[in-house]
């Protein structure tokens, strides 16, 4: 899958953007030219200059440094939320096909219930009520994206569950755990890869919304969403302010969506509504 992905021409811009973002995440805090938290009362709300490439904010902090330092938290938080959602969704999704009907019924209703919850309101409620922190925020987002992974892995597992080779394996006395490990997981992986890519984008956008509201990561700690929130308060003085963090968010989410589309095409998977 990897080599076909690299040779795919449509994937190139997406992969390029993601490589740049990965570079920023790995080295962001090191690359930051100044201390992202250092305030300078003599240099408030400056425009771009040689010293401050993206200017300074209302506290005289260097915006470029804050942006670079914020990349790590923003991206890692969304990656971890996706991981939580993946584990919580894929495992019951696969099991729902093979375990008794009662488990299937309960898990389906639970997933329906999760899909009914108003996404951001619930994420905010969970994060804030359980002690406003990044871990809580990641779990809230992870739980809320569980349905996407559950449905995709369940659908993929259903499509192989009645094939003859699985019946043959069962007749030869293979256990359910063995069948899932040996036969089902490999068939489900492409679909999960597609969902992981698009969900990472969705999580990034949600985490940005949360940090924008000051939930999950509390100021002054910089994040992409938090930067946009301070930019909003000084929109009149620095109308170009939201440009850099906004572009970073949009470019990353776009690249992840494009990657998901390419993965879907490579594996000849049917188009599914984005959730």
């Amino acid at each position: 899958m990897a080599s076909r992905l690299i040779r795919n021409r449509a994937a190139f811009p997406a992969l390029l953007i993601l490589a740049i973002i990965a570079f920023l995440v790995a080295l962001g805090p090191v690359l930051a030219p100044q201390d992202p938290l250092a305030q300078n009362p003599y240099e408030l709300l400056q425009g771009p200059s040689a010293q401050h490439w993206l200017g300074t904010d209302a506290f005289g902090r260097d915006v470029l440094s804050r942006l670079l330092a914020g990349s790590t938290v923003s991206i890692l938080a969304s990656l971890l939320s996706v991981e939580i959602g993946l584990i919580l969704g894929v495992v019951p999704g696969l099991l729902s096909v093979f375990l008794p009907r009662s488990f299937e019924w309960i898990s389906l209703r639970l997933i329906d219930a999760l899909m009914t919850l108003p996404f951001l309101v619930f994420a905010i409620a969970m994060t804030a009520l359980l002690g406003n922190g990044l871990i809580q925020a990641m779990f809230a987002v992870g739980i809320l994206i569980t349905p996407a992974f559950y449905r995709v892995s369940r659908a993929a597992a259903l499509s192989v569950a009645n094939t003859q080779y699985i019946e043959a394996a069962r007749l030869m006395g293979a256990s359910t755990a063995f069948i899932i490990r040996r036969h089902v997981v490999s068939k489900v992986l492409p679909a999960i890869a597609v969902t992981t890519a698009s969900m990472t984008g969705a999580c990034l956008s949600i985490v940005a919304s949360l940090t924008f509201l000051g939930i999950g990561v509390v100021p002054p700690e910089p994040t992409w969403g938090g930067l946009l929130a301070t930019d909003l308060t000084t929109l009149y003085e620095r109308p170009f302010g939201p440009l850099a963090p906004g572009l970073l968010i949009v470019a990353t989410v776009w690249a992840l969506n494009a990657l998901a589309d390419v993965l879907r095409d490579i594996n000849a998977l049917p188009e599914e509504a984005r959730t």
Partner: protein
Amino acid sequence: MTIAAQADDPAGTPPLSAEPRVFRPNKPKSATHLRFLGSLALISIPVFLFATLITFLLGYASGLDPAAGIAGDAATPEVIARIRADFGLDRPVAIQYLDWMAGLVRGDFGVSWFNGVPVLQLILQRLPVSLSVAGAALVVGIVMGSLLGIGAAIWRGSAFDRAVTAFASLAAALPPFVVAIVLILIFSLWLNLLPAAGYIPFSEDPAGWLRIIAIPAMALSVDIIADLARQLRTGLVSALSENYVTGAVVRGLSPRRILFVHVLRNAAGPALSMLALRVPMLIGGAVVTESIFTMPGMGKMAADSALRGDVPVVQGTLVVSIVIVLACSLLINILLGVLQPATQRRD
């Protein structure tokens, strides 16, 4: 497909009568109809129970209680225990849950831990704000999304089609709050056309109401426009290549009639299901737009209360949102059943 090929195709050979056979749902037999409605309602009940259980457990797991807030720092353990008993927080979880559910059924959502106002009253005060914005976003999204999607499908392969596709893929990457900031920049700061904050009730000043919800509604609708346009285009393009369309063309039906009477009915299914999935996100998105535009809406209240640890208010807003979402999906499923009677058949 030629007429000869059409004749070979058994599925596409309706009698060539003067009055074309329009696909109409069968006269509704009220028994099947009722059973369909009943099965839809029955599906919502366990979903409602699970969703409210999650909501209740969230408040319980938070371990928060109103005692410290009310009694202040100098409170003795006895005072705290008395306050907890007043709110019924010293009882077993199961009893608290049943009591809470019984309250919900009666419309009693408890009182705010911070100002003692009944939660339902707080929510009803703020609901019109959120519904204005979300409703307007939904209307804008449906109108614009349908226009773009239908246009892209009719002129598929054209520059318009490519522009719609490009817009849809860009819009899918735009968080609503980023759109909101851009719209504030354009319409408030540069053009000075629309206000960027506050709220005016419709009953006081309809024109002012429309101006004030314009930017938030636009910001929230971008997502819906893009998704609807994409879904409708895909559905329409595949429906347009069906045999019955060729048959309708051969029988001389006008393109407009084919599109709006025959094709749209069949292509609208996935788009409608997508709209049902969008409603929870629309309600959630309202939180961000309401705090950007400092509107006194339900979403902003939920966020503020969550940060204050006002559990009953947060639970109340979640329950009201769940009811709205379930009602919307019920409505959309009924609409689907009317448009495409086959969906009423369940095995």
